């Protein structure tokens, strides 16, 4: 309780409240830009945290993250162009609502739904985070290795239809993580004799390269096709009937999104899609979905914000990011000297509880920003992408420079930017690459520590119920696409038989 109150007091400090508002606003702006989502927002805005107190920095990062989640749905509603995957569902009914002249109502309901979903998830976080951190204390190197394996396999298996590419991206990320001095033995690996590589490839450069430069270069593909649509926003509030239709979908989708967010690999995109289809199935008027049904917008908005809070649980309690954005967050936290994991709750409870409390404040600030400042936000959306993209490229360069104060890293940034572009063009999932690069070094060290502690035997990986459960879940997650395919085929066969 003391820790909680201390965290509350820290998050209520005027400067921290200011950072929540600044982060939320900046995140909303970057998240609003078509094609740029929360991962890019956090990656591009990392340099802002330099020179800040770690607690303020983590509060700012989280605010940028949620701000970008809010922002993503603004462009979904107004331009039919989602900021990122988790905002796609907002285009289904949000854009038709805007076309019907209900853009203001759509934005208000999405902000309120995001707010309620976010708050419900933060409450879940308060109750679940500490028990989970205590449970994680039972993990040894073998269990940690298997948990990381499960996270990676889960994130790959979710890229259904492109699993080989997912595994390729993952292998490449893991291989890149082996570059540099081996911390256990001091052996130099793949440094090519370049001193700059002795500490390995800085994953933040890869993240900024792939997510910021790569995304901007990728957006050059359609830069001349972006239509300038001037939307009349109208009144920013919803009527009684709209609220009546939305309240239960919002309340149902919050917990659903939160649970999906906690699961490794599954993120906001899956949460919003599942909540959308659940609401459509439960609705008395499913035919209205896709044509501007307000509940079709409210449910996914509540779910994806709740999922983003849920995704912070494995990140903070175990140091395991479950998605591309939380992987970027992990990179930023490590850079700030904060090592997420079960011990964080014991060693640095103020940071954790300040962050949790700042999520409450952040959600309140964001709903206000998104409703009161909607005019300003829409104006920003009117700013041509052709002006904003060069600015993002510049921010990526500044961010890279501030990592090690060396312009040599600019070359690495460009290489990974081009590589990110190719991955996007060839339809590779990027999250497995980034995630593998970040957890790779820890994964290897835990693997070797586990094998060393059992005198070279791999029996250690089957020695505890936790390990066996993790292995089972890993096998299940890898076979998941095949299972889905099997059931789909069976269903199709059944349908054909019925029709015959």
């Amino acid at each position, binding site marked *: 309780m003391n820790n909680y109150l201390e965290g509350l007091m820290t998050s209520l400090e005027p400067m921290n409240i200011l950072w929540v508002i600044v982060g939320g606003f900046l995140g909303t702006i970057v998240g609003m830009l078509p094609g740029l989502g929360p991962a890019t927002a956090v990656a591009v805005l990392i340099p802002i945290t330099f020179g800040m107190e770690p607690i303020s920095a983590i509060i700012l990062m989280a605010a940028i993250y949620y701000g970008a989640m809010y922002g993503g749905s603004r462009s979904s509603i107004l331009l039919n162009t989602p900021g990122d995957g988790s905002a796609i569902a907002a285009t289904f009914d949000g854009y038709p609502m805007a076309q019907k002249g209900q853009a203001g109502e759509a934005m208000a309901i999405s902000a309120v739904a995001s707010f309620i979903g976010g708050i419900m998830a933060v409450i879940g976080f308060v109750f679940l985070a500490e028990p989970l951190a205590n449970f994680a204390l039972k993990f040894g190197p073998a269990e940690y290795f298997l948990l990381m394996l499960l996270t990676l396999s889960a994130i790959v298996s979710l890229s259904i239809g492109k699993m080989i590419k997912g595994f390729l991206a993952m292998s490449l990320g893991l291989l890149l993580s082996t570059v540099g001095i081996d911390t256990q033995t001091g052996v130099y*690996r793949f440094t090519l004799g370049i001193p700059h590589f002795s500490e390995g490839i800085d994953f933040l450069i890869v993240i900024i390269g792939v997510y910021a430069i790569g995304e901007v270069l990728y957006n050059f593909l359609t830069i001349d096709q972006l239509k300038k649509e001037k939307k009349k926003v109208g009144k920013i509030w919803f009527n009684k009937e709209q609220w009546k239709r939305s309240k239960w979908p919002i309340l149902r989708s919050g917990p659903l999104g939160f649970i999906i967010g906690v699961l490794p690999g599954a993120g906001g995109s899956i949460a919003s899609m599942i909540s959308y289809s659940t609401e459509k199935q439960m609705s008395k008027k499913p035919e209205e979905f896709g044509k501007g049904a307000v509940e079709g917008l409210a449910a996914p908005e509540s779910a994806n914000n709740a999922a983003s809070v849920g995704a912070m649980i494995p990140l903070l309690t175990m140091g395991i990011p479950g998605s591309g954005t939380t992987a970027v967050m992990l990179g930023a936290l490590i850079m700030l000297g904060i090592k997420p994991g079960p011990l964080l709750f014991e060693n640095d409870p103020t940071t954790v509880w300040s962050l949790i409390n700042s999520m409450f404040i952040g959600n309140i600030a964001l709903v206000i920003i998104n409703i009161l400042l909607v005019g300003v936000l829409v104006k920003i959306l009117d700013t041509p992408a052709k002006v904003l993209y060069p600015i993002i490229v510049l921010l990526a360069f500044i961010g890279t420079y501030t990592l090690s104060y060396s312009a040599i890293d600019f070359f690495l940034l460009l290489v990974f930017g081009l590589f990110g572009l190719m991955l996007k063009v060839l339809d590779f999932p990027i999250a497995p690459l980034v995630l593998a690069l970040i957890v790779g070094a820890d994964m290897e060290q835990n693997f070797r520590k586990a094998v060393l502690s059992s005198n070279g035997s791999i029996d250690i990986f089957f020695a505890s119920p936790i390990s066996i459960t993790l292995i089972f879940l890993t096998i299940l997650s890898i076979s998941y696409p095949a299972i889905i395919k099997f059931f789909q085929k069976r269903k199709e066969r059944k349908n054909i038989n019925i029709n015959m």
Partner: protein
Amino acid sequence: MKIIKMGMPIFLILLSIVFIIGSFNLPKANLGNPNGPLYFPIGLSFLLLIFSVLYLFQELKTLNKENKKITQMLSGRTPKLIGITVLLGVGYAFIFEIIGFLFSTVLFLGALLFVVNGKQKWKVNLIVTVCFSFLSWYAFSVLLGVSLP
């Protein structure tokens, strides 16, 4: 288009072979298990090779299928935009520490805006370049205390 489609798997196969050779030639450790630092890279290099070969076969099967994104990347002014952005980035890397943050940023951002946003909008480009370069210098150098050249 076929070159790009086939280029990636071939690049990845070559990369995995380079890593396999490099992994076997890694120095042995003086502490603990001498082969300790080798196992992970060797295993991963082979994993990369296996998936790269599978990817190659996958691409061969769909070689004639059109990839809209590749077509877009090669058409219009997109290749020019990508190429010039990268070249300007390389130039920025060279001049950044020599002429300092403010001047190099004005040159880099200005040139990038003229290329991406067009010469016709020169007024906007100039205003954004000057204002944003100065603002970013002020924010990072003065407000955040980041040491910039």
